[in-house]
């Protein structure tokens, strides 16, 4: 058994690897653990399909039955839930890892794009899977997201109706989401993930600084051993979580009434918070598209200064600038949220509120960047990274504020 696992892992890796490529602080094992989570999700997902019924009348009941009358049912559902949650988290962290360790340039640019597709697929999985229990929380959360799509200029209505197979979330939407979640997306994910892993090998392994190259060790046992330990830790963590914390299930979907307290899942909490303050066209569509365009151009910027594989491109001063940008974006975001809560929400139309807040945000951020460019003579590369830190910092702040609001702490 162990031998066959070893053989399988060896199949994915070259026979010999750079010793510096397999150090923990190179990848933190995030990509590898994500691959494992994907397989765990496939396995538990296949098991869940034995009992789940994609029908508005029966879906909720089938989950309830699974929870109460099936010996390992609840555990399997919990493992599926926790693996998905951790996969979301790990894919984002993995994205940050490859970005900040300068592993997205030149021959790795293509893989960054495949990675972006994977990120989209992971979110699409979460979103479609979310509806399947057909409980109050999932029904209204999906309604809200679909209605954000409607704000898309010109084709918004068509897009939302296409996704939902109708004007509102109905049993047709449930069937559609079920098919996407258990049929279409898995096939796409499998294809894109295979290319992703193959491209890592094609780029001669993970990115490491030029001067660290040249010390090769045998993949087995060096890398295989580390991977097995990581797997073991992950399995223990997920099993423990799944034994002690159940996947949520609220009351059955009621199309006529929204519960008094309704919250988005944590990975959408930032978006929900954003939508409290600004117009859905801007918060739900234009800003995400702008960020996506930014992610597409990032690996093309500042190529002459890139030190491939060097964390934060190596400079002390740069790290300080990142920290400064992070603090700046957190403060600015908190300030705007407080301003919106205290004054803008009750006295202005959301359109004016949006114009006000978006302009304040972008003017301040541009001022900050111009200040850096003038005084420190920073390069394109560091500017692009600092912009990334500013946006991500704001989004993370919104997520935390949103979660605190959901927990009724603020």
């Amino acid at each position, binding site marked *: 058994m162990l031998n066959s696992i070893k053989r399988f892992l060896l199949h994915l890796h070259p026979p010999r690897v750079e010793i510096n490529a397999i150090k923990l602080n190179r990848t933190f094992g995030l990509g590898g653990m994500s691959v494992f989570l994907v397989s765990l999700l496939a396995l538990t997902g296949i098991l869940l399909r034995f009992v789940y019924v994609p029908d508005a009348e029966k879906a909720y009941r089938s989950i309830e039955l699974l929870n109460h009358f099936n010996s390992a049912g609840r555990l399997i559902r919990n493992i599926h839930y926790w693996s998905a949650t951790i996969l979301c988290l790990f894919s984002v962290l993995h994205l940050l890892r490859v970005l900040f360790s300068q592993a997205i340039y030149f021959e790795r640019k293509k893989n960054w794009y495949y990675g972006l597709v994977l990120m989209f697929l992971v979110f699409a999985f979460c979103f479609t899977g979310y509806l399947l229990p057909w409980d109050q929380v999932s029904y*209204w959360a999906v*309604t*809200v997201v*679909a*209605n*954000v799509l409607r704000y898309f200029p010109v*084709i918004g*209505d*068509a897009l939302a*109706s*296409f996704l939902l197979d*109708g*004007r*509102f979330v109905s049993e047709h939407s449930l069937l559609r989401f079920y098919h996407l979640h258990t049929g279409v997306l898995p096939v796409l994910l499998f294809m894109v993930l295979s290319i992703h892993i193959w491209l890592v090998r094609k780029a001669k392994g993970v990115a490491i600084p030029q001067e660290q190259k040249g010390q090769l060790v045998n993949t087995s046992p060096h890398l295989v051993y580390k991977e097995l330990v990581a797997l073991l830790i992950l399995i223990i963590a997920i099993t423990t979580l799944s034994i002690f914390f159940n996947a949520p299930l609220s009351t059955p979907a009621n199309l*006529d*009434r*929204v*519960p*008094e*307290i*309704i919250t988005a899942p944590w990975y959408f909490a930032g978006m*929900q918070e954003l*939508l*409290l*303050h*600004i*117009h*859905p066209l801007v918060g739900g569509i234009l800003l995400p598209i702008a960020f996506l365009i930014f992610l597409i151009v990032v690996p093309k910027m500042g190529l002459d200064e890139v030190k491939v594989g060097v964390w934060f491109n190596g400079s002390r001063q740069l790290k300080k600038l990142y920290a400064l940008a992070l603090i700046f974006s957190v403060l600015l975001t908190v300030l705007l949220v407080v301003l919106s809560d205290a004054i*803008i*929400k*009750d006295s*202005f*139309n*959301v*359109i004016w*509120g949006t114009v006000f807040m978006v302009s304040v945000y972008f003017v301040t951020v541009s001022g900050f960047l111009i200040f850096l460019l003038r005084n420190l003579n920073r390069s394109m590369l560091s500017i692009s990274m600092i912009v990334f830190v500013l946006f991500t910092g704001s989004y993370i702040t919104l997520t935390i504020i949103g979660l605190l609001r959901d927990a009724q702490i603020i």
Partner: protein
Amino acid sequence: MDFKEKSISRKRFIKKALLAVLTIEVFWLLGRFFGFHKGKKRTDKLFDAGSIQSFEKGKFYFYRSQGFCLYCLDDGGFLAMDLKCTHLGCKVNFDRESQRFICPCHSSAFNAMGEVLSSPAYRPLDLYVVMLEDNRLKVDLSKAVKRSDFNIKQIFYHS
């Protein structure tokens, strides 16, 4: 020679015919996708809300499963409003004490006439057309009427 020319033109004919069929097909699909076809109507019938005598002035009547409410104003006028929040489509709840509609999703608030009191929503609640037939109030649920603000003409009076 003659034969060859003919065969090429036949081939080209088939190719073009296929292309034409494909184009029509694509346009039809696009048309469906962008909703140029007639959408399914929610209901063709008028909804019978009850005899006009049965409504008390100054009260709200809720038809949750039809997704609307009927406000019988103090002066005897009627306003039928969609309970779907104009922000992102949740159903609003009614707070009797403050006479406000409040949305649980992002806490937009609307007054008794459906006007926005608190963002993120910025359009008032949609309306349905109310009419009187045989002394019974009928509400036309086939179409929710969007409005940008409240005005007196939106209220239905019977004389």
